[in-house]
């Protein structure tokens, strides 16, 4: 199980790094990209936690979150494009 623990740590570091970019900006698109990375980090962490805690219900969350992440990115990019034009 140690690989899972190390992977959780790596995903947490990636989440924090993405958060740095969300705070720094400078454009809305930068924040959208970084929020995307942060969300994928969270999805990976949920899947790893489901394995670590043997909680099979959490696996459904990854499926829903994957779809929601795509929709959120597309919606944000529409917002970015509209603001620019």
């Amino acid at each position, binding site marked *: 199980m140690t690989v899972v623990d190390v992977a959780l740590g790596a995903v947490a570091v990636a989440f924090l790094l*993405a958060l740095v970019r969300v705070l720094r900006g400078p454009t809305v698109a930068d924040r959208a990209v970084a929020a995307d990375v942060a969300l994928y980090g969270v999805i990976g962490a949920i*899947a790893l936690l489901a394995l670590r805690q043997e909680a099979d219900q959490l696996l459904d969350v990854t499926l829903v979150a994957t779809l929601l992440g795509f929709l959120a990115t597309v919606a944000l990019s529409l917002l*970015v494009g509209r603001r620019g034009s």
Partner: protein
Amino acid sequence: MTWSTVLADVLIGVGAGLILLAGVGVVRLPDVLTRANAATKATGLGLAAILGGVALAVGTTRAAVVLGLAVVIQLLTSPVSGHVIGRAAYRSGAPLWQETHTDDLGPHYRGGGPA
């Protein structure tokens, strides 16, 4: 340690490493297009590898179906979202890296070379 647990560990390790790489790239790269490039590639493959590894490690049919579906969705949508966000960023006039020396879209959208 059977081959499936070893493979699951390898997949989880590779996936977590790729997501970590995406985080580093998002912080260190110079402009929004390069950041989107790093983020999309690394998270697309990285998350797919983690989910595949978890599915192998859990080993039930239900986990395989749910996570397999999530992997397919992830591999289909990740390039699309990367393209869409990069296109929106370019068209909204996000600054390019100063060392960008080929900008074929510039004359059409920005009225000149690299901005």
